[in-house]
């Protein structure tokens, strides 16, 4: 327990000290809210769909969680490249403990970032549909962030350098965001796009969040939660498996 705590603390210390990263992480979501929320929002309203910002914010929060958690997952890659992983791996501690400590730290940071975006969205005019459901939304945020963190940790265990990670980011992480229901509703979209969206677990995470925050879910909440739980389990197994295979 001590070890998980100190590894978690390590991540938090690094986070608090990296002011540029904290602020940098806000740039994109703010731009999205302005450009999409206000820009496309006008057309959205004209089409009779209502308030786009209410629709969009859960998607933006999900984006923040995804990018942040995957980013902090690369601490494992950094440790591999800069040698610190050797120090961790020869310690008389089970590898799974090292993985969990690092992943929980990254997840905590990402949840904080996601909540800050939610607060910011409030300033942009976003309002939760029912305050009583906000704690449930927070629970969904925690579960999905954990899944993203373990996913990032697993990826970081596989790739050998930052270029490789960049490739994964462009060809896997960004599509996971754009091909989810984060930006557009699933009604009336082309069949191919709909297929790609429906097989993407991020879609259900966004959908659960949207149901709880804006009352605009597409699938049933039960289905969303089931898929989130399965995704989390799969990412944990993936990360443990890959992390155990790292060779020094």
């Amino acid at each position, binding site marked *: 327990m001590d070890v998980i705590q*100190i590894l978690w603390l*390590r991540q938090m210390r690094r986070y608090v000290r990296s002011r540029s990263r904290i602020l940098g992480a806000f740039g994109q979501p703010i731009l999205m809210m302005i450009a999409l929320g206000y820009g496309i929002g006008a057309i959205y309203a004209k089409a009779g769909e209502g308030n786009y910002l209410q629709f969009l914010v859960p998607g933006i929060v999900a984006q923040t969680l995804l990018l942040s958690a995957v980013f902090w997952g690369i601490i494992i890659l950094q440790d591999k490249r800069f040698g610190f992983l050797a120090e961790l791996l*020869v310690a*008389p*501690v089970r590898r799974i403990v090292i993985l969990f400590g690092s992943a929980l730290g990254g997840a905590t940071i990402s949840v904080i970032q996601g909540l800050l975006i939610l607060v910011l969205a409030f300033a942009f005019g976003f309002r939760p549909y029912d305050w009583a459901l906000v704690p449930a939304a927070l629970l969904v945020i925690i579960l999905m962030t954990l899944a993203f963190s373990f996913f990032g940790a697993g990826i970081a265990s596989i790739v050998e350098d930052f270029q490789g990670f960049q490739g994964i980011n462009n060809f896997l992480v960004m599509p996971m965001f754009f091909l989810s229901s984060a930006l557009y509703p699933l009604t009336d979209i082309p069949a191919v796009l709909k297929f790609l969206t429906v097989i993407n677990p991020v879609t259900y995470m966004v959908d659960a969040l949207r149901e709880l925050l804006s009352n605009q879910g597409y699938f049933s909440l039960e289905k969303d939660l089931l898929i989130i739980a399965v995704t989390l389990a799969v990412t944990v197994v993936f990360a443990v498996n890959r992390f155990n295979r790292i060779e020094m």
Partner: protein
Amino acid sequence: MAQTVISAKDVVKRFEGDITAVDMISFEVKKGEIFAFLGPNGAGKSTTIKMLTTMLRPTSGELRLAGHDVTKERDNARKAFGIVFQDPSLDEELSAYENMELHATLYGVTKSKRRERIRELMELVELWGRKDSMIKTFSGGMRRRLEIARGLVHEPRILFLDEPTLGLDTQTRNLMWAYVKKLSKEKGMTIFFTTHYLDEAEDVAERIAIIDHGKIAARGTTKELCKQTGTKTLEAAYLKLTGESLRDEASASNDGLNFRTALRNTKLR
């Protein structure tokens, strides 16, 4: 008769593609001894130290640290040693103290003892005054000193150093070895290091094993090695045992320095 702290018996390490990096190596190191593994690049030094420190599994043979089998009682073996890796291994974005604290926690040093022990070791390597500085502000020599101190936080019986002076200037090298000798003398710590610098092996180690092509070519004190080979200096003995040819074999550690450069450095001293 002093106690045996490190023992290797018929150790073999074969990598994929049938490359034998270590070929039936056996040796023993006694408590409090400073022991050097000397050899050209690609000789099997790093592979041996990686097997001793549980980073690699031997293909066959038996390795024991303080009586613990490194494959069967891995955690006990891990508690018995501290290591300074060939490559830097500190967290740059943490302070010196935080790096030490993290290590102490990983090795289960109780909270009440942590601060005192960290302080003692950081004073030994003259870094206590910089305890709250981030590692990224440290020079290469300071990092190495801190790594030595860190390797000792959990009071291991053995300290492994894998090519510890690579890339350090002469002043830092001398200072570093002075600390190591002091530790061995004052704490009865067993020191095992690898090097391809002849002068380091000669000046620091009490006994040397010369390793080449995965086999131990000879072992003993400098005097004994000269006697065995009928030569007058360690360098002559070394060249007689390992040959004059340049090594092109891919080194497992790939430290970027070849044998000739190492030799030239030694002569320039």
